């Protein structure tokens, strides 16, 4: 094992997004708050998704998780593709870091960024609305696991993409629709039956539903089942990423 090597790569990845905080932390927090302001203003008082929970409060965990998801993905994917395209990835590939250390460093750093953005949104939103916390363990577990899933997916996308355009396609045609259609703004019970069934094939739905359970103690699906789905997604994506790293797919010709 090379714990110092792992820590260095993790530290480098955190330092990298730390150097552009405006873009990596502040901007997503402001974007999420704008969503909150607009949707809360338009829908507050008209919609009640969970009994006794105002719509603005309902919205907060969804927006937090959506931002966690998008930022964790953005961190690992953009860091990897930038290093790959500018060529400086070679300085990591030349080192004795194992595939697992490489994977963990990128994924944990992505999770840190996702969770920091999520925490920022939560902290600012409590100035506008009271959001209860029923099961903090579920909140932490879903935040950590979901950001790791997206960190791993970001690595896969970063390794696969050969140009920024392909990565943008991945982000705009897969990550964005799946996160928007995962119940951020609504409960799936408010959807027609067909769309309810379809939502169950969206792994992001389980992330948001389980995360929301941590706040309100209410969810569309049993939270432990959601946790299982997220864990399974993490296991599959970890296996795929490690296989890509081991074989050197698109990294070592």
């Amino acid at each position, binding site marked *: 094992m090379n*714990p110092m090597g792992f820590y260095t790569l993790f530290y480098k990845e955190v330092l990298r997004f730390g150097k*552009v905080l405006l873009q990596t932390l502040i901007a997503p927090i402001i974007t999420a708050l704008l969503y909150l302001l607009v949707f809360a203003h338009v829908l507050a008082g008209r919609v009640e998704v969970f009994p006794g929970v105002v719509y603005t409060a309902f919205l907060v965990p969804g927006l937090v998780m959506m931002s966690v998801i998008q930022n964790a993905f953005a961190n690992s994917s953009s860091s990897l593709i930038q290093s790959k395209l500018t*060529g400086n990835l070679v300085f990591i*590939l*030349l080192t*004795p870091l*194992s595939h697992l250390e490489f994977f963990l460093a990128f994924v944990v750093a992505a999770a840190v960024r996702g969770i920091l953005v999520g925490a920022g949104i939560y902290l600012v939103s409590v100035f506008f609305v009271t959001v209860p916390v029923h099961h903090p363990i579920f909140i932490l577990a879903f935040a950590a696991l979901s950001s790791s899933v997206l960190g791993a997916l970001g690595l896969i996308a970063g390794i696969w993409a050969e140009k920024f355009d392909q990565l943008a396609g991945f982000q705009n045609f897969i990550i964005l629709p799946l996160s928007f259609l995962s119940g951020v703004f609504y409960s799936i019970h408010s959807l027609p039956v067909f769309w309810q069934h379809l939502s169950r094939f969206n792994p992001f739905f389980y992330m948001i539903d389980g995360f929301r359970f941590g706040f309100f103690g209410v969810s569309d699906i049993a939270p432990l089942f959601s946790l299982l789905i997220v864990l399974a997604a993490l296991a599959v994506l970890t296996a795929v990423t490690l296989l890509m790293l081991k074989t050197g797919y698109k990294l070592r*010709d």
Partner: protein
Amino acid sequence: MSAAIAIAGLHKRYPRVHALNGIDLTIERGEFFGLLGPNGAGKSTLINIVAGLTRFSEGRVRVLGHDVVTDYRRARRLIGVVPQELTYDPFFNVREVLRIQSGYFGLGRENEAWIDELLDALMLTDKAGANMRALSGGMKRRVMIAQALAHKPEVVVLDEPTAGVDVEQRKQLWVFIRRLHREGHTIVLTTHYLEEAQALCERIAILNRGELAALDTKRALMARGIGRMRRLCLTTAEPLRALPEALTPKLRRQEGNQLELQLDKETDSIIAVVDALRAHGAVITDLSTESADLEDVFVELTHRNPR
């Protein structure tokens, strides 16, 4: 004792190109070794395979006895590679880049003194806090060399380290690389500047179209083929109508009153040639000689037997 780099039966096949075709090469510890070859000969492919950046189709590669595939962690700790492409991470300053690089190899604060030494030796001390984007091409190249040395590797591979570096800085780099060699590092150098290889390297491999065209000491390479030759350039008062019969096979070029002859250093005497020309009526007004150098040997070897 294990060789610094041991390559046996190495093949690298791309879908349309057989980039390396059965390379067998051993570089001993402490050598200053030159790897030469025209563009596309396979030099960088070979180096990337040794560094673990490129997979290979067949064969075995070891660094100080450690297999670069099955024991890659130990192999990579023992080798430092300066890649050919000028590349840098625009997020960090020079010191951060070097700290991060040594951290990848498990080295922490205890390596700070070596980082300072590298900065000093590579004339980067006053740029330690500068962002990589703010550096000139030559400085970026020197940072890349420092990155390759950050973990004090025993074997140092420099793939075109002086490309894009001005003459003065190139000479300073030579001094630094020579110092590394004196301190016991094995140095493997690829370069397009053949005078660089001639000045620095003890043993040289010439790679051509994925095969070893030559592998020998510099002295032995220079003592064979064209390396044994000397050019004799003469200017005569009047253009010569004919040459003495004995000199005709040695004539390489004749334009007006200019003559160029190729002589064997061992067997041909310049005095005898001049005497023969004078006896033939030539009035010699100027004369110069030039020994064949590594470039001539290189051109001869890489242009022979084209496939």
